[in-house]
């Protein structure tokens, strides 16, 4: 595995998103907020339609990073949400190595990640640290 600073993970595409994708995550996580599947509820709250569960895409991003750098190696995973994602969106997951460090005898890899909508807008940004074998 090439892990110099700037090395990029293989890009993923996810979508077009459906309300079923949101419901599947909601059932798995227990977060049943109706704003993600009930159109009438979402409209009353001022949205045109239900929108994606932010934690779902955070989870997909974590899946992406785990496939790249190893599920057991993750030591820190952080996301910040930017614009909403909507049914029909096609999201692109990508990221690159920003630093290689050594701490307490462990080789650590810092990465920065983004989830981008088909419009070019940023749905979320992420930062993670993985401990990788030497």
């Amino acid at each position, binding site marked *: 595995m090439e892990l110099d600073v700037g090395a990029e993970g293989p890009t993923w595409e996810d979508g077009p998103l459906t309300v079923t994708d949101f419901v599947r995550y909601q059932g*798995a*996580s227990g977060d049943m907020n109706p704003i993600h599947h009930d159109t009438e509820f979402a409209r009353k709250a*001022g949205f045109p339609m239900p929108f994606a569960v932010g934690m*779902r895409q*955070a989870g997909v991003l974590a899946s992406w990073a785990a496939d790249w750098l190893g599920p057991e190696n*993750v030591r*820190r995973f952080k996301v910040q949400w930017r614009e909403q994602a909507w049914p029909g969106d096609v999201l692109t997951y990508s990221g690159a190595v920003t630093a290689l460090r050594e701490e307490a005898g462990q080789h650590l890899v810092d990465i920065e990640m983004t989830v981008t909508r088909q419009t070019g807008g940023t749905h979320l940004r992420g930062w993670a640290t993985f401990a990788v074998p030497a």
Partner: protein
Amino acid sequence: MDASIEGHRGKPFRLVVEEGKVREFARAVKSSNPAYVGEGPQATSPATFLASSAFWQGPEHSPWGDAALNWERILHGEQEFVFPGPPPAAGRELTAEARIDRVYEKEGKRGGAMTFVELVTEYRDASGTVVAESRSTIIETSQAPGS
């Protein structure tokens, strides 16, 4: 938002990392990684898996107490997980405790104060060692995000 909720703690709760839940969660976040959904024992759980633990607890485990939250104005702004070692494997029994770690205000870009609440949940194994920490940043805006 009442800043005096800073420091509030929920009652600790027991949490078993269940194999079936890990598999279901991994599928919902588009993973086919054998570490989560393979035929062998699950060596680890997905990095955001523990986010689901709060949704299955009783109100006594929540650190919010009687705090009046205007849910129409609440945004989940940021979420972080820290693992001192590999994330907990299926079958592990953990004890979790949630607390309101910080409450602070910032001026919003479009005017109006925003209140930030950082909610921390620590997950410990049977020996009392912290195996995971979750930090959620919740933002209460001065108007509903959809308006």
